[in-house]
């Protein structure tokens, strides 16, 4: 069998290049968009994902972690009474107003009050124990290094937070917030900063003896009645609620779907036009084959095979492009999140673009009428 599709692709690669590029860029746009959205919304759940607890207690109905409200302190006792619970820790949440240098004006910030003990749970994955211990100093704060320009200070310098002087004792990464700056302090410092606010914490975080039982234990611990003053979730449930909230309540999800449609459309238009042009350019050769007895089905398979190879080349190119863009983003501390499901979805969509374009190009084959060769 003569490999007509592949030989033609190799020989006339210039003709097919636009299609492969369109596929590659479509794939890159889809994947980078998805990675950015996931990255950004992951940072909405950073409090959960950067912490070590498996169970979170908060105000009932809380849709996103940043929307927490104070809960009664007796929740802590109730948690500790459960034999599954190994450790419980309060997480204080204070909205703050930052004044760094005069030129920058005020910046709205989220103050997270955490237990600075070396075995503390909250932000355990983002702040190493040595740095964490320095939060014991009154007025000590830690921020993500990417937020330094917004705050206008360097490590060792001080600024005014909620009217009180605080000191930057160190920076870390992976703490960027959505729509503001995360500032981490000790519980004691947070209490000082919480001028006129509810002194009770917004969340309690618990570590379980058996991390795998998070969902079961969370269900056990939840008070379940209508008048409950707090609710209990597993960490993954609360993180998913938070990401879901940002994705759908903010309209960002719709934006992703809309952008994907646009990319699909543009990719399909360019790819199909290129393939149709290639078919049209060889139409008398195809017609000759048809005259000699090759069926339209056989000719269609040649075109679809070409579309398939264009797609494969585009996928490879798109993969390389995406990797480059995402690495660049990562090096610039732009939050990006890649999941196997996301990559698979993009790959499927990209192959969809090429196969759909191939089917459009197959329609051009209808012009391969051998009677037209006789004139």
């Amino acid at each position, binding site marked *: 069998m003569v490999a007509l599709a592949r030989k033609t692709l190799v*020989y006339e690669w210039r003709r097919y290049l636009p299609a492969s590029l369109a596929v590659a860029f479509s794939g890159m746009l889809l994947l980078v968009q998805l990675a950015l959205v996931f990255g950004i919304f992951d940072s909405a759940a950073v409090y959960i994902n950067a912490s070590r607890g498996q169970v979170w207690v908060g105000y009932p109905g809380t849709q996103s972690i940043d929307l927490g409200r104070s809960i009664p302190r007796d929740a802590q006792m109730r948690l500790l009474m459960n034999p599954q619970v190994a450790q419980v820790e309060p997480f204080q949440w204070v909205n703050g107003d930052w004044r760094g240098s005069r030129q920058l004006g005020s910046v709205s910030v989220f103050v997270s009050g955490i237990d600075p003990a070396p075995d503390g749970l909250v932000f355990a994955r983002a702040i190493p124990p040595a740095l964490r211990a320095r939060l014991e100093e009154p007025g000590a704060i830690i921020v993500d290094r990417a937020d330094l320009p917004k705050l206008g200070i360097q490590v060792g310098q001080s600024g005014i937070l909620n009217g009180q002087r605080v000191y930057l004792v160190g920076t870390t990464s992976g703490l960027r917030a959505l729509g503001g700056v995360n500032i981490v302090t000790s519980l004691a410092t947070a209490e000082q900063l919480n001028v006129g606010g509810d002194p009770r914490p917004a969340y309690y975080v618990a570590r379980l003896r058996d991390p795998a039982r998070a969902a079961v234990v969370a269900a056990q611990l939840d008070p379940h009645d209508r008048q409950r003053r707090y609710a209990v979730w597993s960490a993954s449930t609360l993180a998913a609620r938070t990401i879901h909230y940002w994705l759908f309540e903010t309209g960002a999800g719709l934006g992703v779907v809309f952008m994907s449609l646009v990319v699909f459309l543009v990719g399909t238009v360019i790819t199909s036009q290129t393939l149709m042009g290639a078919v049209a350019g060889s139409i008398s050769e195809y017609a*000759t084959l048809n*005259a*000699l007895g090759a*069926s339209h089905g056989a000719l269609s398979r040649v075109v679809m095979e070409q579309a398939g190879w264009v797609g494969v080349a585009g996928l490879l190119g798109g993969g390389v492009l995406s990797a480059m863009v995402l690495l660049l983003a990562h090096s610039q501390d732009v939050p990006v999140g890649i999941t196997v499901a996301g990559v698979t979805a993009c790959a499927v969509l990209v192959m969809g673009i090429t196969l759909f374009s191939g089917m459009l190009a197959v329609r051009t084959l209808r012009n391969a009428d051998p009677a037209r060769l006789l004139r």
Partner: protein
Amino acid sequence: MVEHVAIRGRGIGKSFTVGKVSTRVIDELSVDVASGELTLLSGPSGCGKSTLLAILSGLERPDAGSVEALGEQVWSLDRKALQRFRLHHIGFVFQGFNLFPALNSVEQVELPLSYLGLGAEETRRRAWAALDEVGLAHRRHMRPAELSGGEKQRVAIARALAKRPQLLFADEPTSALDSVSGQTVIDILHRAARVHGTMVLCASHDPRLIAHADRVLRMEDGRVLADEHHPHPPMGAHTTS
């Protein structure tokens, strides 16, 4: 010489309608074409040569009349059966060579053979033999861009002959070629008719070909005006291979 009729056309009529004007291109035409002969359809431009060729070869449906080829009523076959009939019995050579730019000569010839379901071995053997027959053994691995016009047409003829068709149709096979190449091409077609007993029907307004045909059908306005047999036309001194 015993004549075997390969194609029997009876009462063929064909009109084309462009806008509101309908033109009669083939008019009540009946014709028999024999195997083992090179039959030339000649006549002025626009007299309907190509259209008749298309009707006799199963590419264009006539408005009236019938075509019997190798005992089959061609225009009673459905689309699939007609395609199979063409695959197994008919070869074509067109004015444009219609070669795939990406394929070398062997592959051009092998391509239509692959639809016959022959083994790789047999396919290759036939392709080489066909290229040998048109005198292009030494051009086997060249692509169309590296071949002259005459060589391209010879590859196209090899592609048509490799199937070993009983019926070979050629439309203006020499009109894009210089006289030497044209001579070579007509010799090859002639030899195919003599050696393989193929029916070769060739449409051309090239007067140089008339002397080389076994039989000349002179057409005008969709009708055959004269039917001349040349008992022993000279085979060209210019041989190939």
